[in-house]
Each structure stands twice: as structure tokens, then as C-alpha cells.
């Protein structure tokens, strides 16, 4: 879920109501609206989808969105008020885990850059889960260097034809739509030749294949596009402006990772500490010091996350946010590695190599070996730790940027 304060509202830092000079709804308004909705649509008897649509139409889907698009122009901090009231009434939710990419990445991008027609068409089924979204950004030849991507979108009458290969696509096999970045002009430098689209995943020319990963399962897919059609009405943002639109999406991705508040010993450290307490025969002096260091690291990271949220709450977003994902990735890796070492002989086994297609990483339902392997991906997905270090060094510390050998050179002339 999104936790940052970044504006999904069009005008930075202001809710729609504030920007319009009207009074934003308060917590009591939210509770009253929830009560009205529950009175009109009893969750016990209303079909799930009907209920979710009604909730969207009542502006209680994401209260910080504008009226008419599932929101009320209210402060984002009021969303938990609505969620809690619905949960208390036993109302169905939209299974946010299943549609995380739509909620966390596609929706904010559509809100910021989509046309009113696109917003009307896409946001409601996105939020209710009728249409699952996936993200077609990375390619075999464009990982950290996303702007160097090679998937081509070529004009074809009123629309476009897209050809290329995308990778690391969660949910592609379940998705109805995708946010897609493709090259519309190879004759200009790489950042300038990109455009951003919404792709119908059921269109012909779209082929999805599972991508099995080191854990044995396939959370991700490869997507092969062969002259796949996209109407021009499904382009998001101007032709050639795709990089700017994609940046907004990625910013939301990194805000989404790093997470909300946990109690002490929440998160990955819980399993390690529990194993330590339950299995005294596995303890050694060397492991003890590692255990304590990891416990401190996890607790300090938790406090640093809390401090970051305190900064956001008083409107002082600090550069510390850039550090959060680097810390989270390293912690998960160190803790899970420790867990396998602590397990000793049992660490030689593995719970299950069966090829499965889970909706997302399942850190807590699996064994230490799975956690160890899956955590390797934490420093790769959503921006490698090396790229994040570049970002911290350049944008936070102000160190000189990388020397660019691809600057000002048309994309088609870049060495490959």
C-alpha cells in the first residue's frame, strides 16, 4: 500500500478540496458516509462486486482521490478511518494484495497524467479488482537502464502496433490491462523517444509466459508483444513524454516499498528471534552476536521508518526516504541468511521446489530457505541497490553525476 504523502491529487501537497478552496471532509463525515452506504447496501446481502462499485461511487474507495473518481478530495490520512469502518461492518474489500500494481502504480499515474475520459473508464474497475493491472517496463536489455528499452510502438492508422519483449511482470497472467512504456521515436536520444500506454492484455499479439525464479516458483512473467494493437485513446501523456510519466510511476513504486509501521519484532526478524528462543540447542557464540546485531539493526530500521513518517506527517519529507529501501533489502537478506545458518542441518533442505504461480512473495508462509532465496531479489527489484546508491549520492549528497556516454546520441545509434 502507499504510505507516502506524494500528491496523487494533481496539485502538489493539496487535496482537491483544499485546492478548490472548499472544506475537505473530516473523520466524522467519512464515518457518516460509510454508515449511509452500509445502510443502503447491506454487505451481508449485497453481491461483493455491487458493494465495491457502490463504495467507489460513494467516494469511499480512496478518499484522497477527487470526487467522481472514487474519492472525496479528503486528506489521505483519513483513508484508515473508512477502511476501519468497513472492516468493522464485515464489508468485503477489494483484495488489495491481488491488485497492488493497479492501486500503487497505475492508478496514481492515470490520475496524474490520464485524460478525464481515461480516468472515468479505468479507475473504477481497477479499484474494484474487475480489471487487474500489470506493469510492462523492464526488458531483457533494459533493466537498470530503463530508458534504453527497445520495445517499439509504431503508428498504425488511428492507433499503434507494439513489438518487443518485456520481463519481470508480476500478475501478467491474470491482468486485463498493463501500463506500458515503448519507444515511439528511435531517432532522438533515449529519454526523449518514449511514450506511455495502457495495453489491453487480451489483445492479439500478447503472449505471457511464466518466468521461473531461483525459489522454484514463478511470481513473474515474460511478455512477448508481436504487433499488439493499442488505440491512440489509450496513450497516457503526450507522445515522447513517456519517460516523465514513467518516473511518476516508479516514484510511487519506491514509496510503496519500505512499508508501514510494524510493532517491535515485526517483519523478517520475528522468525529468526522465534527460532532462536525455541531452539537453544542450535545456539553458538558466533550466531549469538549475529542474532543481536540483526535484532538491533531491525529495530533501528523500524525506528528510522517511524521517524520518516513523523517527518512526513509534519510536512518535512527528508532525504532519509531514499535510504529506506537499501536498508530493507539488506536486512531481509542478512536475517534470512542467518536463519538458514541457525537451522544447521535443516538448512540443507528446502520446503518445496514445486513450480507455483503465487500472487506475490510469501515471506512468512514458507521456510528459511525460501526466505533466503527470495530476499536476494529485494536488492534487485524496484531499483537495484546500486542504482539507489547512485540516487542517494547524486540527489541527496550532491556528488557529480555519472559520466553519460549515451547523452545526446539518437537511441538507434547507441552501441549495443
Amino acid at each position, binding site marked *: 500500500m502507499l504510505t507516502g504523502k506524494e500528491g496523487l491529487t494533481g496539485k502538489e501537497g493539496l487535496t482537491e478540496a483544499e485546492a478548490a478552496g472548499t472544506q475537505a471532509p473530516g473523520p466524522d463525515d467519512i464515518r457518516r458516509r460509510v454508515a449511509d452506504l452500509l445502510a443502503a447496501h447491506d454487505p451481508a446481502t449485497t453481491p461483493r462486486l455491487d458493494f465495491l462499485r457502490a463504495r467507489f461511487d460513494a467516494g469511499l474507495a480512496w478518499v484522497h482521490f477527487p470526487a467522481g473518481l472514487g474519492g472525496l478530495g479528503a486528506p489521505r490520512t483519513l483513508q484508515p478511518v473508512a477502511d476501519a469502518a468497513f472492516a468493522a461492518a464485515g464489508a468485503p474489500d477489494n483484495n488489495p494484495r491481488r491488485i497492488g500494481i493497479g492501486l500503487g502504480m497505475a492508478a496514481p499515474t492515470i490520475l496524474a497524467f490520464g485524460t478525464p475520459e481515461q480516468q472515468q473508464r479505468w479507475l473504477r474497475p481497477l479499484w474494484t479488482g474487475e480489471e487487474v493491472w500489470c506493469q510492462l517496463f523492464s526488458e531483457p536489455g533494459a533493466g537498470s537502464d530503463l530508458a534504453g528499452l527497445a520495445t517499439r510502438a509504431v503508428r498504425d492508422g488511428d492507433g499503434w502496433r507494439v513489438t518487443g519483449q518485456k520481463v519481470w511482470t508480476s500478475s501478467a497472467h491474470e491482468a486485463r490491462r498493463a501500463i506500458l512504456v515503448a519507444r515511439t521515436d528511435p531517432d532522438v536520444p533515449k529519454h526523449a523517444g518514449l511514450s506511455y500506454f495502457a495495453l489491453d492484455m487480451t489483445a492479439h499479439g500478447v503472449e505471457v509466459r511464466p518466468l521461473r525464479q531461483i525459489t522454484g516458483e514463478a511470481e513473474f512473467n515474460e511478455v512477448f508483444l508481436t504487433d499488439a494493437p493499442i488505440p491512440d485513446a489509450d496513450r497516457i501523456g503526450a507522445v515522447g513524454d513517456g519517460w516523465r510519466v514513467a518516473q511518476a510511476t516508479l516514484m510511487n513504486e519506491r514509496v510503496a516499498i519500505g512499508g508501514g509501521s510494524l510493532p*517491535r519484532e515485526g517483519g523478517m526478524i520475528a522468525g529468526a528471534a522465534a527460532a532462536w528462543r525455541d531452539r537453544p540447542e542450535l545456539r553458538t557464540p558466533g550466531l*549469538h*552476536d549475529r542474532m543481536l546485531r540483526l535484532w538491533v539493526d531491525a529495530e533501528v530500521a523500524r525506528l528510522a521508518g517511524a*521517524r520518516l513518517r513523523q517527518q512526513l506527517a509534519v510536512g518535512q519529507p527528508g532525504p532519509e526516504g531514499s535510504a529506506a529501501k*537499501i*536498508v530493507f533489502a539488506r536486512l531481509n537478506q542478512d536475517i534470512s541468511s542467518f536463519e538458514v545458518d541457525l537451522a544447521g542441518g535443516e538448512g540443507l533442505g528446502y520446503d518445496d521446489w514445486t513450480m507455483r504461480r503465487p500472487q506475490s512473495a510469501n515471506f512468512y508462509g514458507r521456510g528459511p530457505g525460501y526466505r533466503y532465496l527470495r530476499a536476494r531479489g529485494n536488492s534487485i527489484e524496484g531499483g537495484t541497490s546500486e542504482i539507489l546508491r547512485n540516487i542517494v*549520492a547524486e540527489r541527496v549528497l550532491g556528488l557529480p553525476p*555519472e559520466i553519460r556516454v549515451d547523452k545526446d546520441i539518437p537511441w538507434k545509434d547507441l552501441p549495443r
Partner: protein
Amino acid sequence: MERPAALTEPAEIPDLLYSQAENDLRQAVRSLLSERAQPSAVLARTETDEPYDTQLWRALAADMGCAGLLVPEALGGAGASYREAAVVAEETGRSVAPVPYLGSAVVATAVLLAATGPEPGKEADRKLIASLADGTVTAALAVAFESAPDGDPPLSVRVTGSAPGDDAAGSARLTGAAARLADALPADVLLVPADGVPYGLYAVDAHAAGVTRTPAVSLDGTRQLCDLTLDAVPARQIAAGPAAVAAVRAGLSAGAAMLAAEQLGLAERCLEMTVAYVKQRRQFARPVGSFQAVKHRLADLFVLVTQARAASRYAAACLADGSPDAPVAVAMAKSYCGDAAVRAAEECVQLHGGIGFTWEHPAHLYLKRAKSGSIAFGTPDRHRAAMAGLVGLPGAGTGTSA
């Protein structure tokens, strides 16, 4: 196994930000120290017979009121808290200032306040605390700098002469020795734990006959240690028995937390210095700060400082609020910030290259202060071990899962 209280206690995380008043205090202290504790001057002083800058200390302690931050207003202090005291410590760490702030305004003050309570019954105690608060008197705790809050107070000084427990000054006499005292060279009063029946905590006039302070050649020249001998020196009892032990531990705990804040300030300054240097130092016709090998190390250091700040602020908040989680918070802060400061100072030396290895460049002052600080009040390792029992993570060979 039953969950230890420390796992459920901090249901709500306290405010970890700096208040406006704290930022104002920081600005005032920084402006004083940046003018009066320039690296070249600090370095030059380490090679003199006066390793502490008593004039600067007077300006900080008395004129600016930093000596009395922890002292209640009724006793002549500012009635502030460990949050404010930590901000001053961050600044003294940033400038590696040769002032006895930690020893006098934090440790000795905390020992006295713990021993006497907020409303001391004895006039002599009130006067001593008030004179510490207004900066006219400087005090130090006479235990080795490496003493950890969870350890047993040392017993190297004995009560000789008159019976302990008598309030009259000079009624007790102390004889013995203590090594590696921090901030004791500029002290006027020494707080001495001494063995007797019962064990007690005594105040000794540091200028009295029979008191010998011998400067010890110290790794950290900005906080020169000394060895102490006492030869039948008149002493006044402050506390006795368990109250004395508790007071010493409270002082060491406060010292550990505020030293963690000092280490945070030191680490942050090392990062800033190094970033500034690699932006202007050119090799291979480009700033060395444009090489990823350098950038990534500094990015990691930035990340480390953000984490250390959270640990340090949490410890200060817990002490300020009297939180039951304070022992865990202090152990975390002292171990985390101690390691962070050493790493920051080591990176500072390395990324400055050759100039960072010279005597003339201040990087070594930071390295030596960081390394000494990580040992002071207990090593990081020791604090982690102390924390193990509190959070239910006992060591190897500790038997059952219960």
C-alpha cells in the same frame, strides 16, 4: 518462552524529531563551537599541557547555560531534558570540542541527581548541584571511562579515617587509585565510589592535598584521560549502599546515551567533510566523487547516519520520558552509534586519501575520538550482550527454551 516485557513495552514510538527549541539550541552551540573549536586549534591544543579548553567550556557551560540542561529549575538549572542535552552532545561530537560537557554536565550531574533525588535534603548537595548547573564548578565521576552501566562499580578506592555516614565535611578520608578517568583533568570536584561499610559515593575537592591527577597518554587527545591517586583525602558522602550503586549506574547510562548522540554528530560531520572533499579533489581529470567506488561508500554512510539518528533520538527520548524501555534503547544507541562513528571516521580517512593520513588534517581527531568513544561506557559488543537478556535472546549454553 514467555515474551520479555521489552518486546511489548514501546507500544507507541515517541517523537524522534528535533523541536524548534532544540534546533535553536543547536544553532547557538554550533555557532560558538565553529568559531572557538576550529580543527586547527583543537589539534594544536592536544599537544599542550592544557588539553581542555576551559575558556570555551565556560562559554558553553555558564554563558550559554548548557551545564544546567539536566538540572531542575528549582536547583538552578534549565529544567530541560535528555533530548536537549543530546543536541548539545551532537554538536560537541561534530567539532570534537575539548570540553568536559559529557563528564560534568551529563555524567556527574546525572550521578548527583540520581543520588539525591530532585529535592536533595542536604544543603551541601543542593549547593554542589547548583554550582554545576551554573557552570562555576566542573565535576567528574572517578571511574574508568570504559565502565559500562551494567557492570559492578570498581572498588579501587577505600574509605579510611573517620566513620562513613557522618555528614560533616572531612569526616571521611579516601585512599586509593583509579585509572583512565575522562574529563577529570579540568574538574573541581570528583565523585568517587569508595569501598567501605557501606560502600558509598563521595565528593572530593579535586584541588585538595593528597589528590594527584596524572595525565594519561590517550588515544583521543581531544578528551585526555588521567589517572587518579587519593592519599587520605577528605571526602563528603553523597550516597551509600545500593543508592550509591544505582546513582553510578544512572550516570553511566546517561553517559552512554549522550555519547551515542556525540557519536552521531561525529559521524555526520565525517560524512559532510568527506562529501565536500571528494567534490573538489580531482584525479583522472574528474572529481573523485564522480567515481561509483566512492559514491556508493558515501551513500552507504548516509544510510548509516540516518539509522544512527533514529537510534540516538530514541534513547534520548526514552531517558527524557523515563521510559521503561530506556535500558534497551541506551544499549541499542550506544552499540549502533559507536560502530557507525568508527566506520564514518575510517571512511573519512580513507576517502581523503593521503591527506587524510596526515597529522595536519583533522580526520585523525575524529577517528581517535570515535574509536575511544566506542569503547567508553562499554563496547558495542558489551551493550548488545547486556541487551540480550532484556529482549529474551540469551546466549549459547544458556540452557532451555523455558
